[in-house]
């Protein structure tokens, strides 16, 4: 399952809708699905802000892969290569605007990594390990 959107902030709501639905289809609770939605929104917002530097005419591709043991989201752009070392959130005790997105991404995804084999543009891979609890199974309707 995948969705392709222009790199304009007005399409982030579409990515959020899709993400929340996929998380629910994947068996997550309402609460976890909300955290995954926020994380994917932040990752796409970062592509718009940092990779594309506000250029709203590019594309972002978001792909979803669901397996019983993991929920995977792949975010691809065609911008200049990101230095993974430069992707760092701010110290949460240092109150100032910005620097929260990465924290939201890392709290719900177990793996947050740029795929170094991609030669043009960037591919961010987010993986959430799924623990199949009874509650998860029953809450999904």
């Amino acid at each position, binding site marked *: 399952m995948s969705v392709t959107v222009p790199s304009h902030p007005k399409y982030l709501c579409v990515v959020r809708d899709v993400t929340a639905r996929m998380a629910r289809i994947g068996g997550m609770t309402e609460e976890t699905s909300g955290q995954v939605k926020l994380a994917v929104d932040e990752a796409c917002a970062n592509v718009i802000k940092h990779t594309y530097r506000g250029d709203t005419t590019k594309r972002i591709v978001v792909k979803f892969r669901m397996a019983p043991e993991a929920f995977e989201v792949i975010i691809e752009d065609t911008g200049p290569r990101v230095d993974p070392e430069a992707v760092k959130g701010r110290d949460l005790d240092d109150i100032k605007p910005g620097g*929260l997105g990465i924290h939201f991404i890392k709290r719900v995804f177990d793996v947050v990594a740029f795929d170094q084999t991609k030669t043009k543009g960037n591919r961010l891979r987010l993986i959430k390990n799924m623990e199949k609890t009874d509650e998860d199974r029953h809450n999904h309707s």
Partner: protein
Amino acid sequence: MKIDITIAEGVPIVAISGEIDMSTSTLLRTHLLELVGEKRPLVLIDFTYVSYIDSSGIATFVEGLKGMMHYGGKLKFVAIPANIAEIFSFSKLDKVFEMYGSVNDVLDR
């Protein structure tokens, strides 16, 4: 997102409804910085109908708060839904922003 600003007992109440994200937080920022520019001693943000907030929305409030602190103004949040409150607390901002149950709790009416 929609923003309605009403003045009650001289205090601006900013009622936001819908989703605060990268595409809508710019409008919120404009309104907030205008109130800061007017050096309002107290500004209330009514979260009753806020369904979503991302880091750009939070950054906007942090910026507004910092602006108000310069002149000793107070920024107060009311009626924060549980899912939004959770995001503020994860961001360690629940201690930074003053939060109240309802508008009446702040205005004491």
